[in-house]
């Protein structure tokens, strides 16, 4: 009987342990407001000088550095698929912080953003023409009837300034060549590499980055022309950002090259330094754009 009792007990134990013991279901609790007591989030939108991945790799150290220095706010990096999207964002005044190209700087000023610094040497803000070494292009005449790729029609250094250079060197860009806007700097270079375009227009930082990331491909490419320098990209804050925050950000940026960590961040961004600047510093661009639109084409389609 003892053996039988033991068998029965074992049987019951087995059946009972077969039942799964799990917690009850708990539905999601939605709210109309975020969790209180969180620091203010500031979004830093950077013009798509790289694809989003590369842009994050290049600029995330800067954002992290800023966050480590700033107590009251938290900055989030925000990429954009293309220039139109980027421009749409600041025109809608969504990002608090902007890093636009000089032309976009002028646009942003119009909607309430203000320049607090210039990103990089002014000498480095120039357009360059990348072409495969095997194309045999010697003069601008050689590109007539060919495709030229640009990141965007509003890209000052990589589109406006190259097109003005071609204008000044006897090329009617509207008739002599086919202009293709491929969305990003890297795309413009890749178009040239792949032969989709005879020349790809870009500016020095993306090209240096490409050389670093794709040295074998870069070996087959070469800079065939470059435009005169103008002025570099700006760092802007929205006009509703408190002054103290703006000043803190400005100081951090201008003094970035003073520390080894800051120097590394600048190298990663292919940016020499941040220099003090304001809205007026970009009047030259206003003039340049005005002349460009008069002699070449309008920057934006009306």
């Amino acid at each position: 009987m003892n053996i039988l009792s033991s068998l029965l007990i074992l049987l019951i134990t087995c059946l009972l342990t077969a039942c799964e013991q799990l917690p009850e279901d708990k539905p999601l609790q939605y709210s109309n407001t975020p969790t209180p007591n969180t620091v203010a989030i500031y979004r830093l939108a950077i013009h798509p000088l790289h694809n989003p991945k590369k842009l994050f790799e290049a600029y995330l150290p800067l954002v992290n550095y800023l966050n480590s220095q700033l107590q009251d706010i938290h900055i989030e990096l925000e990429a954009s698929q293309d220039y139109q999207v980027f421009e749409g964002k600041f025109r809608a005044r969504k990002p608090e912080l902007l890093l636009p190209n000089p032309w976009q700087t002028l646009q942003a000023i119009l909607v309430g953003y203000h320049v607090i610094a210039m990103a990089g040497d002014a000498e480095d803000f120039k357009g360059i023409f990348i072409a495969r070494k095997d194309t045999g292009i010697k003069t601008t005449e050689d590109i007539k009837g060919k495709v030229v790729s640009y990141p965007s029609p509003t890209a000052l250094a990589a589109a406006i300034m190259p097109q003005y250079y071609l204008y000044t060197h006897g090329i009617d860009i509207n008739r002599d060549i086919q202009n293709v806007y491929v969305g990003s700097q890297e795309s413009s270079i890749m178009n040239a590499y792949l032969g989709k375009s005879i020349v790809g227009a870009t500016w020095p930082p993306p090209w240096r980055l490409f050389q670093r990331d794709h040295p074998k491909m870069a070996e087959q490419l070469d800079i065939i022309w470059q435009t005169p320098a103008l002025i570099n990209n700006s760092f802007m804050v929205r006009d509703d950002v408190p002054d103290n925050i703006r000043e803190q950000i400005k100081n951090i940026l201008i003094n970035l090259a003073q520390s080894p960590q800051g120097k590394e961040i600048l190298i990663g961004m292919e940016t020499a330094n941040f220099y003090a600047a304001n809205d007026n510093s970009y009047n030259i661009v206003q003039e340049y754009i005005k002349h460009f639109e008069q002699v070449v084409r309008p920057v934006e389609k009306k």
Partner: protein
Amino acid sequence: MLGTLRSQLMVGITLTVGLMMALFIWSITYQQQTEETNQHIQRIQALADSLATLSSISVASRDFSGLQEIVKSISHFPNLNHAIVLDLRGQVLAHSDSSKIGLYLNDLPRKPEFNRLQLTKNKIDVTQPIIFTEEKIGWVMIELDRTFHHANLAKIWENGLLYALVAIIFSGFITALASRYLTRRLYLIQQVADQVQAGANLRVTMSGNDEAAKLARQFNSMLDSLAQREQQLASFYLLDLVGLTITSPDKAWIRTNECLCKMLEYSEQELREMTWAQLTHPDDLCSDEEQFTRLLANEIEGYSLEKRFISRTGKVIPTQLVVRCARKDNGEVDYVMSMVEDISQRKADAEKIKQLAFYDPLTKLANRRLLQDRLHQALVSSARNGHGGALLFLDLDNFKTLNDSLGHDMGDILLQQVAERLNACIRKGDTVSRFGGDEFVVLLENLSVQPFKAVKQAGDIANKILSSLNQSYQLASHQYSSSTSIGIVLFKDNQSNEDELLKQADIAMYQAKNSGRNALRFFDPEMQASLTARVTLEKELKLAVKNQQFQLYYQIQVDSSQRPLGAETVIRWVHPERGVISPFHFIAFAEETGSILEIGQWVLNSACAQLKWWQKKDRTRELTLSVNVSAKQFHQVDFVDKVRSTVLLHGINPKLLKLELTESLLLNNIEDVIEKMTNLTEIGIQFSLDDFGTGYSSLQYLKRLPLYQLKIDQSFVRDIVSDENDRKIIRTIISMAKSMDLNLIAEGVETEQQQALLLSEGCTHFQGHLYSMPVPINEFEVLL
């Protein structure tokens, strides 16, 4: 329910199958559940990974329309409850339910770098960070519905139960058939066992070589063995050497063998209606029941004792009983086994042995051993209760004469009649014993505690014995009268030991005998002193012999002219403490103890040495020397040789040595005496008969003795002046000596008158104080 092997087998196997099936179902269900859960987890994590990857660029670019497209693209995933993309603040950027876009979810992981997987009863949730270039930029939340999973498990569970039920029913059915088949042969054995138990003499008939067949063979073998043992036991039980019985705890006979029935003179059936207590001797019942109670109380496993049964005819049967018991599991006595041995013969033999060991076969009285034992007990008892006791030592007067005259048969009859009379005289509890020969000892116990009353009680009984034993006896055809001497010693408080008391009684008896016989005497302490003195004397005499503490004195012997003829040597014991001791005080004792042999030899040796010395001088060359010889000394086998060798050793003239013999010496073995005297006479030694006239010398013997001299005893000489009879005796002796041509000397002459009268009668040699006392040699030689 489980009383049979079949039912046990059925229940056991069915339960085992049920258990195995349950284990199987449990295992399958558990495995399925685990597997499905793991699959869901993998799928939901893969989905979350995909969503996080796909949405990373759109989140980084805040491309909300693109995000919503991505979320919508996975919303068709089976059992998906929702898919959500959130920014770091928990704001919904995209949702499978687009109405939720823009709302906040605040329940996000605190450590955003980790995945969070939540498994609830009906859902599985995963929350995963969106990492873009190693930076977390938002969250993905996916939830899958698991209710379908439970439905699957329930279906598996139901199917499993159904299969298990079918398996159990089927196994029960198969087991029932199999158990019936497997146990059919066991049932056959059981049937035979039941019939054997009911008394049938059966065996199992079963062929084959399986376990049941082997069991059947072993069962048959066991039955055979049991039958054989039963038979052996029965034959053992039938043995008529010893009684065997099995009784119940309430003392009833259950079984008895023939031997016991015969012993008790009851049939077994009759005994079954009785208890053993009814047939036990009342005096033995208490001890038996006491042991039996201890046996029932589990204090002992058995016992043995001697007890007496009373048979049907009232015969008392001494038995040796050995009892053992068989107990039940709870320790209670089941039944009792007893062995009853009739020890009547053994008892009789023991009694006989006891009689032989402790009783005199002639008189049936206690013997000396039993007396000593009883005396010891009496002393102990006296010490304990303070009562006095007495030992009566009896010796029949002149018993030796009876034996010599009427023969030993008559002596034995007398002893038997004396024993009967003694038994008639004593009280119950007293002991009469034959101590040896014609000696009896009566032990009286429980006399008064007061000594003078005890003396009177002992005296009364002793007088009663004296009176009884003085009555004449009829010994066959002879009428015989006898008397008895009784010595009595009283004892109390264990103050003396047994041997001492017996000795004291013996002494008292001798005192009675010395007093004239047919008398009783109480032991006198003075006698004890005398006894002690004798013991001391014996020790000192042995020492004296060893150290030669003796000295020879010489009493001169003269002729009618008072010329010295020689001397009689008289021994003196020069005691280192008590001075010179006369032979009167120790010679008789020396004769008793045997020391006289050594003393006699010393005297002879000393006398011969003195003679040798005298032989060297003219004045003493002719002097003779008389030496007294005791009877014990003379009767030595080598007496002649010793004397001869002593004479030769000293080289003396044997004719000068005169050995004085007493008349009593001549009483025993006269032929031997004559031969020894003749042998010594042949070498020249002369013999003088001392104390002549005081004994009962046969003139016939006297005539044959080679005597040289008769010595008239001083008792006749002492009164020769005043007593005519003495004078006549002396005259007769002198006449007889002359007629036998013997030399004569009178001893104990103390006055001139005595000397004159002796001389007038014809005696010419004299010895006595008139001439000299016995003196040492130096004084003696002055007399010459």
